């Protein structure tokens, strides 16, 4: 995923989560600025497989094996999680 596509998806995600912030392309990834918080998302190196992404803050580096994991970590880092996280539920088969 190239940085512009990543930026577009993350910027939309911020809107979805109701987070006021800015997303810029930075190096091979993106930089997210929300208030005082600055986060970076960088693609993992091929030798770091199965990890695909790193979410980097001042305090730590969190790996993510998929976009699903990256978005979950990012939302958590931005403190934008829902009061009742909605997980997919499958209705009983008919």
């Amino acid at each position, binding site marked *: *995923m190239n940085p512009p*596509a*990543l930026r*577009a*998806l993350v910027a*939309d*995600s911020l*809107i*979805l*989560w109701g987070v006021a912030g800015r997303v810029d392309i930075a190096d091979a990834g993106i930089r997210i600025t929300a208030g005082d918080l600055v986060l970076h998302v960088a693609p993992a190196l091929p030798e770091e497989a199965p990890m*695909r992404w790193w979410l980097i803050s001042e305090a730590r580096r969190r790996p993510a094996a*998929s*976009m*699903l994991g990256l*978005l*979950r970590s990012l*939302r958590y880092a931005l403190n934008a999680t*829902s009061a009742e*996280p*909605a*997980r*997919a*539920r*499958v*209705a*009983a*088969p*008919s």
Partner: protein
Amino acid sequence: MIPVSVITGFLGSGKTTLLRSVLRDPAYAGSAVIVNEWGDIGLDHELLETSEENLLGLANGCLCCTTRGDLARTLIDLAARRRSGAVTYHRVLIETSGLADPAPILHTLLVDPAIAESHRVEAVVTVVDALLGAETIARHPEATQQAMLADRLLLSKTDLAPDTSALEAQLAELNPGAPILRAVQGAIPPDVLFASAARPEALRHWLDVTVTPSARHSAGVETISILREDPIPGVVLPLFLEALAEHAGEKLLRMKGIIRVAEVPERPAVLHGVRHVLHPIEWLEDWPSADRRSRLVLIGQGIPQWWPARLLEALEEEARG
């Protein structure tokens, strides 16, 4: 499994008239009927000609909020009485109050394990007054929600409104996948209304709708359509649905889709979801038409127009390695 259908529509749209007509059909005369009325004194159930045992009124509140628990208890109790032989019925028809949001009702029907183990949601029919519907939808968000969540839209009182083209265009904008049917005094074959919305024949209209990547807005509710020419890797589907539920579940009112899965392209997968609750994926034997593209329609509030497509694209790229 006992089929359950929901009849909804704004106040005065003609739900009870429709229900009365449906119950005159011999195949539906023995249906269990649950009527939800807003107010202390229920009247609608007095107008229905069906046996007392099979008719239940839920007054003093709206099904989508205060009496949701009552609905669950009523269905469970009815099913128990059916098993014991105290009552006989082959389907359940639920008439909501005119102010009800059908989404929480569907949610209850789908996720309550005691209900879902013995009941199957077949169709949501929304009755729209042909004369006043446009104004009602413009003024009342409940009416918009009811129209957007319908599997089928039924224009009532069409004898009073000779030209319904503007209303039909408005409804097609709100819910492009739902066929718009017409009836005077509820006169319409019930099977047309209540056939399972997931069956291939019921999907035909939905598939005939030209779905282009887009988002339409109305009263704060958007219809977002995704179209994919290439098959979607099977591994992407659960990831996409999981992300959709996790991040947009609260804002997603309804989702429908037909997906060409890369591993089994000859058998389309049909998706149905209400908020973060998904029906089990249904695999059709064949494509209902020559169009074999994946199509997904999301109806929600506050979901950025391109977020679902961007997410899907990102997951597809990961799956391709």
